[in-house]
């Protein structure tokens, strides 16, 4: 909403300064976006000083100048003027500037191999004179301290730009803004003195509103003005239109626009001679079409509110008029429309047809339904003043009568909500200044809501009116109480935070990426999950919700590798999606490591990052989070984006239904297809929702502290087993031989090759044996060793290596 303070003062009697008014506007809820002169094409010309002028390396007649334009760094400009020299103060035009003389737009360009950022100007280029022999020489005395300032003074008035919230259509008119300021004690709202309009004869174009279901028009006011001359607007009107950031067109169009901004009363002017006999406001029929004033042809659906004549559609009521009945320079007779259209009907139609106009914006928010006459009177009078002509009587068709809303306002609601009290007298003053009808009875005010305030429907809205006009600074600051209703974080949230920092502590750098991704990359990681499309994506390569953390992670990993990084550890914790119903999402940690675990250095030889690195990071994280390492159960089936031979999944215990994590190498095909240039790429992912954590606290889950001081013994075993036998199984067999005595089993060698059959491997294990109630003797140890050997041989088909 743009206008000038001067315009505001046509409605508001005030002596307050612009600054005061602006400050108050913000404090009553009409936020000031800016208060500036319209930028002019002359703003780009700045006073500048040549710091140095060197000969151009490739051209005899050009110079390369370092120019001080009042910024931190000087700017390089190539200049052909013979008078360009060090310390000269002149005028500089930045790239993007249009040069008045030839209307050319400057750009950053290379002149004989040297880049020039803008231009130094001659008087002729600025249309100041015909002097074109050299650049302007400004007096150093006068301009020494003005380097960087605009050369031309901007004389245009300052424009106030308000950001009006959608609940306040009344403030889309200057008068509405004035009313609010007056209520806040910042002036007096001027009365509108309508002189009786001189009207002559009846409005002889018949207007009818069809009574239909979904009829979007409640009332249609109109008058005919005959014998006008649609001249150019006078300067005062042109200035107003320009201040809105618009171009003046013709008196009739400018006047309707002016009244719209002045009173928030959209109007439409038809060339009356182009109307076929009568105006019919009706619902559109499927497939009807018309050409609108934006020069586009619209094909309508059923039940859109159209203004038509006998030949068909003239325009969309309250949204846009049509070219067929538009006013032109030679228009002699006009029909002026001032109607009320239903906001939801306007919104529905404009959304479907994708039309944005000023009128639509206003009708959609709610025009004062009682303002048909006010608008038409103001406009008709101006038209007559400027264009001449005879005004007919006002005709107002309606199918619904407007009734003001009434609210009973219980005064104590105010202090209940705001926490402070205000005198009833003051409440009544504020509300009546805002245009409310008020009647006090005991503690209840009966209010009649002004017709221009469709936003006010219940008592709470009245509280807001009073408190915003009184000022939010009257609200007390009550210190918060430190009472707690329940713990800050629940168990799952605690786990989330713990795992996040635990993974980071393993050297991973956390990132946050979009929840959506590129369908093509997502497909590598989607498995059999649904693809969830975004209907209106921000770009075609962010068109689906991610099925996994990895699509984005891999994408950005590649970007960083392309930046020259090699050994990267990245992770993200966040949502992945398997359906478009709310809640069909899983919280997952995805972590990647690329490159080498060790780059060769003076201590160590280099080594690629591998599966067991990511397995360590994963297992350590789980153990730190409080899960029992001995119970973790590993299986070598994984999603297809993993290397089939170098990956695994993890269950918190063998009996669990869902794996809680995967780890392994990313499938080499994906690395190849995405052109990721790395020595190695491993990853793990943890599914937080699959962790069926007990409700017991960690301290409650700990067993009582027991230890043994008896001698600890070690025995080493080497078994020859089938290649397909897993170490995990072997360890489990050994551990279960005697859970009390066998404290730990460690793998110290795995060997395949010479001396071992092709389908076999050798596994060497170190077993720790300790009793908690006696010192074990040699033959106890022999017994248990034999038992280990026989159990392993029996249950895995292994042979002890002799």
């Amino acid at each position: 909403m743009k206008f000038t303070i001067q315009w505001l003062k046509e409605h508001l009697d005030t002596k307050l300064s612009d600054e005061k008014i602006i400050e108050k506007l913000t404090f009553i809820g009409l936020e000031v976006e800016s208060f500036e002169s319209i930028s002019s094409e002359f703003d780009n010309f700045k006073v500048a000083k040549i710091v140095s002028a060197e000969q151009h390396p490739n051209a005899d007649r050009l110079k390369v100048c370092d120019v001080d334009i009042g910024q931190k760094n000087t700017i390089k400009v190539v200049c052909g003027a013979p008078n360009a020299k060090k310390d000269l103060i002149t005028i500089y035009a930045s790239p993007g500037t249009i040069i008045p003389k030839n209307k050319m737009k400057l750009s950053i360009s290379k002149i004989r191999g040297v880049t020039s950022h803008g231009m130094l100007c001659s008087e002729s280029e600025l249309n100041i004179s015909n002097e074109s022999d050299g650049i302007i020489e400004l007096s150093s005395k006068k301009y020494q301290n003005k380097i960087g300032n605009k050369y031309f003074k901007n004389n245009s008035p300052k424009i106030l730009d308000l950001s009006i919230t959608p609940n306040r259509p009344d403030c889309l008119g200057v008068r509405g803004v004035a009313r609010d300021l007056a209520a806040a004690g910042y002036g007096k709202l001027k009365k509108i003195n309508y002189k009786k309009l001189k009207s002559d004869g009846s409005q002889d174009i018949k207007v009818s509103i069809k009574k239909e279901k979904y009829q979007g028009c409640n009332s249609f006011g109109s008058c005919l003005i005959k014998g006008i001359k649609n001249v150019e607007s006078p300067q005062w009107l042109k200035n107003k239109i320009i201040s809105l950031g618009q171009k003046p067109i013709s008196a009739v169009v400018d006047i309707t626009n002016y009244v719209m901004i002045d009173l928030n009363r959209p109007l439409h002017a038809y060339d009356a001679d182009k109307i076929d006999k009568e105006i019919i406001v009706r619902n559109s029929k499927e497939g009807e079409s018309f050409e609108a004033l934006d020069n586009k042809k619209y094909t309508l659906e059923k039940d859109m509110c159209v203004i038509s004549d006998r030949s068909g559609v003239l325009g969309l009521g309250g949204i846009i008029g049509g070219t067929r009945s538009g006013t032109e320079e030679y228009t002699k007779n006009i029909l002026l429309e001032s109607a009320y259209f239903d906001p939801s009907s306007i919104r529905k139609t404009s959304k479907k047809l994708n039309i944005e106009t000023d009128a639509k914006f206003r009708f959609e928010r709610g025009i004062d339904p009682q303002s048909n006459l006010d608008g038409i009177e103001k406009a008709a009078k101006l038209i007559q003043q400027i264009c001449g002509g005879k005004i007919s009587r006002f005709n107002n068709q309606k199918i619904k009568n407007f009734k003001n809303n009434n609210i009973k306002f219980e005064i104590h609601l105010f202090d209940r909500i705001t926490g402070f009290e205000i005198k009833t007298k003051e409440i009544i003053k504020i509300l009546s200044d805002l245009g409310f009808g008020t009647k006090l009875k005991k503690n209840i005010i009966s209010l009649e809501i002004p017709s221009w305030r469709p936003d006010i429907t219940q008592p709470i809205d009245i509280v807001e009116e009073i408190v915003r006009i009184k000022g939010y600074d009257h609200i007390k600051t009550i210190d918060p109480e430190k009472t707690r209703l329940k713990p800050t974080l629940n168990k799952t949230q605690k786990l989330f935070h713990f795992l996040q920092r635990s993974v980071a502590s393993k050297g991973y750098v956390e990132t946050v990426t979009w929840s959506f991704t590129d369908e093509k990359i997502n497909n590598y990681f989607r498995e059999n999950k649904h693809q969830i499309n975004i209907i209106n994506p921000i770009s075609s390569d962010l068109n689906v919700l991610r099925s996994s953390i990895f699509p984005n992670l891999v994408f950005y990993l590649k970007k960083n590798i392309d930046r020259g990084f090699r050994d990267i550890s990245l992770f993200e914790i966040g949502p992945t999606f398997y359906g478009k119903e709310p809640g069909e999402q899983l919280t997952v940690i995805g972590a990647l490591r690329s490159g080498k675990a060790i780059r060769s250095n003076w201590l160590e030889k280099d080594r690629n990052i591998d599966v067991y690195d990511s397995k360590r990071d994963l297992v350590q994280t789980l153990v730190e989070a409080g899960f029992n390492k001995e119970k973790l159960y590993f299986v070598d089936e994984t999603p297809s984006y993993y290397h089939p031979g170098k990956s695994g999944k993890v269950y918190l215990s063998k009996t669990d239904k869902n794996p809680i994590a995967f780890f392994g190498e990313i499938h080499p095909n994906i690395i190849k297809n995405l052109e990721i240039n790395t020595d190695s790429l491993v990853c793990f992912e943890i599914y937080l929702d699959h962790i069926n954590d007990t409700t017991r606290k960690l301290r409650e889950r700990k067993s009582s502290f027991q230890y043994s001081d008896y001698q600890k013994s070690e025995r080493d075993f080497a078994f020859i087993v089938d290649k397909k036998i897993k170490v995990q199984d072997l360890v489990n067999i050994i551990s279960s031989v005697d859970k009390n005595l066998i404290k730990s089993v460690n793998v110290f060698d795995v060997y395949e090759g010479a001396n071992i059959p092709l389908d076999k491997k050798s596994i060497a294990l170190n077993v720790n044996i300790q009793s908690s109630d006696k010192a074990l003797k040699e033959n106890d140890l022999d017994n248990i060793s034999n038992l280990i050997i026989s159990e392993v041989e029996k249950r895995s088909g292994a042979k002890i290596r002799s």
Partner: protein
Amino acid sequence: MSDIKKIKDEYLAKINNNHNLDNLNQIKSELFGKNGIIALEFKKIGSISANEKKQFATNLNLIKDELQIALNKGFKTIEAKEINSKLQNEKLDITLPERNFNQGKVHPVSQVIDEISSIFSEIGFSVEEGPDVENEYNNFTALNTPDNHPARDMHDTFYLDKKKEYLLRTHTSPVQVRTMNNGKPPFKIIAPGRTYRSDSDQTHAPMFHQVEGLHIDKNINMGHLKGCLNYFIKEFFEVKKIKMRFRPSHFPFTEPSAEVDIGYEIKDGNIVIGEGDKWLEILGCGMVHPNVLKNVKVDPKKYQGYAFGIGIDRLGMLKYGINDLRAFFETDYRWLNHFGFDPLDVPSNYRGLSR
């Protein structure tokens, strides 16, 4: 008697003057060998008269102990010397680089969420969450923003179906709806999380983070709202005083509504929060609209309270001097390492929010 004393003095002197391992060993065997001097002296006991025997044996034992101690000391001294001289030759260049390590980092958004949670935890709020995909009802309708309302245009929404039933939540406010639908008042919650709007330029990202706050009880008024936010902003920016102003605004789900600005100034190119005469909008808030309470089956005649929504990313940018919002989500390894936080830097009350 004088014999053994003589021997003692002679050997003590020898031991003390000898700092050579071989010589000491020689002395040791001369004194304590099978046929060493001490052994020979002990053999004499048999030939000594009964009344002198006891005295002789006592003296001899004392001398033996004394010599033994001196000898041990001699050995220790030599050992220490030898170790010291050996270590001299083992001197490393400790300026050579250490073994490689990787320092992990926590993203600024995560850190700021933890800071926010820590502050609100102090005044009794608990953390709630909601799904990123929402239905149209929870995101708009229940929040008093019906389909035909222009306020919907303030949110550029990502939709997941043509009927516009499913969408990516445009704010964290639907968590209010879910929380109140699933429980009974009073409510005192915050809900941080991802939010989405389909605009993207220098200052807007299609995804960003908000934290929602909701406090509903029997007599919670705008004064409590002011107090809560005043406390939060002061704690978050870790300043003693904060300049803050409430401005009337409009959100369909609160009435009255306000936007909150904080005062700042630019000092040496850096933004200083809490001083100065410039204003920066940082959040929207208000008293929960009675229509919203009715929609979630809370009686607005009995219960009332406030809600607020704060942009997390923007708070982080202000506090930690980050200029570009989009950089948060671009996974530039250099940026993440520069602005990220050490995982041990857990914001808490007793250690302070930030170092």
